[in-house]
């Protein structure tokens, strides 16, 4: 019984990929990401996410990247727990003053080469929290940022696009 359910569940996902509104673009993105990820870093890119005071909206969409629709790991990306293992720092939130030191320490703990992506409108310059006594003026006011991804929150497709853009920049720099 249980095995039948499991088989059914697993086969359902594997054999019938759900329809995606812009499947063509996402497939293209997937191919491009796979090639560039290999060229730049061999086979994988490790991401450390830090919430520097976001509302949690961006975290939800970053989480969605790992769901079966986007399956980020098939591109060679993976989320890692330790900054020591990370190539990319994904930062959300305007950077609250209470999180500033934790963000700096996470960044400093990452080995070179490293990239920083600021995710979301408030990570750009504080967004709707700009000017608050409790917030810094976005991620770039605390650590050097390679790429800003706009959106409130950016959806998973926009996040995938952002990772591609970063790889392009990384390829040029390398």
């Amino acid at each position: 019984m249980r095995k039948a359910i499991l088989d059914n569940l697993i086969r359902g996902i594997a054999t019938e990929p759900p329809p995606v509104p812009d499947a063509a673009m996402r497939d293209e993105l997937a191919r491009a990401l796979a090639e560039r990820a290999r060229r730049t870093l061999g086979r994988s890119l490790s991401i450390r996410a830090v919430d520097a005071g976001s509302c949690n909206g961006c975290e939800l969409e970053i989480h969605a990247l790992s769901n079966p629709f986007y399956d980020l790991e098939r591109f060679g990306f993976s989320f890692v727990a330790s900054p020591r293992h990370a190539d990319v720092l994904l930062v959300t939130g305007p950077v609250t003053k209470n999180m500033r030191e934790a963000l700096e320490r996470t960044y400093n703990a990452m080995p070179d080469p490293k990239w920083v992506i600021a995710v979301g409108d408030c990570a750009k310059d504080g967004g709707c929290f700009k000017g608050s006594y409790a917030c810094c003026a976005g991620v770039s006011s605390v650590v050097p940022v390679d790429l800003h991804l706009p959106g409130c929150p950016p959806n998973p497709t926009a996040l995938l696009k952002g990772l591609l853009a970063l790889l392009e920049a990384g390829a040029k720099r390398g």
Partner: protein
Amino acid sequence: MSQLLSQIASTKMMAHHRPWPRAAVNAEGWRFAADQLAAGRWVLVGLWGERHAVHMAVRDEAANESAVLSFAAADGRFPSVARLHPPALRLERTIQDLFGLIAEDAPDGRPWLDHGRWGMSAPLGTHGPANAARYPFLPVEGDSLTEIAVGPVHAGIIEPGFFRFTTNGEAVVRLEQRFGYTHKGLENLMAGATLARGIDLAGRACGDSTVAYSYAFARAAEEALEVNVPPRAVWLRALMAELERMANHFGDFGAICNDAGFALMLAQCSAVRERVLRTSDTAFGHRMMRDCLAVGGVARDLAAEGITAIHALLDETGRALPRLKELYDNTASLQDRTVSTGIVTAALAKQYAAGGYVGRASGRSFDARQAPSYAPYDRLRFEVPVRQAGDADARVWIRIEEIEQSRALIRQILDHLPAGDIRAELRLPGEAREGVALVEGFRGDVFAWLRVNADGTLARAHLRDPSWFQWPLLEAAIENNIVADFPLCNKSFNCAYSGTDL
């Protein structure tokens, strides 16, 4: 005068506060209220400050009556409520941090949100020099104790907060939480803002509850301004709220099982959650329905395409849920982790007036949709699931049962959705007015209180997340559980960080 307020010796009714009455009380009346809370006769709904006053929202659940009490903290002090009623403690520490008002005889005078990094103290009151950054944790004494510090940056992709565990071997003997890392000064940004900016900010207080927060804010503002919201907007809001509830419950269902090492459920549930988000996107133009509500109605109407998509979602979730339930129920190794893990006693849930699945898994049946209720829920049929076990398993089941209820609610809403306008015009109040609202989010009741100036701008707004009364219960629930079960317990609560840090 309401039954509730008539019990207090000396009160002065305040005009233009809707729909609950607000009364100014003296120190004696304030202490009387604290006594009522401590005795369990009233329930604490909220406790917040402003420059020279503190306010307390209370509810008499038996009489289904609510009121706001205000105390003028003339000399910058007010009688501590937490001295008698511990659920008020973190709220009082927050009032002290933001306004510099002192809770007299409070059992814990340490700061809460203020980490000494704002460049000032009392940012919403009379500013002083910044406080010290050093934070004394509670002392621990005893043999063979180990302390484990976790955070504010955690291993996963979650919000920042700090947990200090004291363990004896594998068993946790104490957990002390420390938050405030995501404090953005939201309520200060709201002061002086237009209502349009106010609701934008409210929708960004807590990302997973963006509908619930903008819903609560909008209703409070509409009460203050006495706006008649068009019926179609009233029903569309409930539709959004139920979609939000369903998306989050599916997400939690999978994530809780994943923290018990059962990744299959996460894969299954996150796929269903994605379907809900995409349906919301089709229906209202945003996956999380952010900025889809407005003061006076809704910002987005629902077209035929959206209705079709939601019907398809109901069919799909109707097929998926029985399978997922069975999978959960029949996986002994998973049940072994969730059953009897992280128990919240009914007494604590009642004392803290814990809302949402935390309260309902421990015998507390409160649901703001049912009482005090609000349109259109007063015309919808639904049940509030309640369980008694109080463990992680019960919190999973409450979510599953609430998904079923939300599906039924969505179907009713689509069947009875009125036609017509979606947004009412707002008129300037011409005088200061106040409004209050309680909205049932997926996590529990979100409370909003605000004062609108004569020119229609916000004088002051306060938002209270349900997690204020759930986080402390996690400290209790984890006691005597093993460290390795903390992620599971924590996820079964899934409390808000940003929502409480504001």
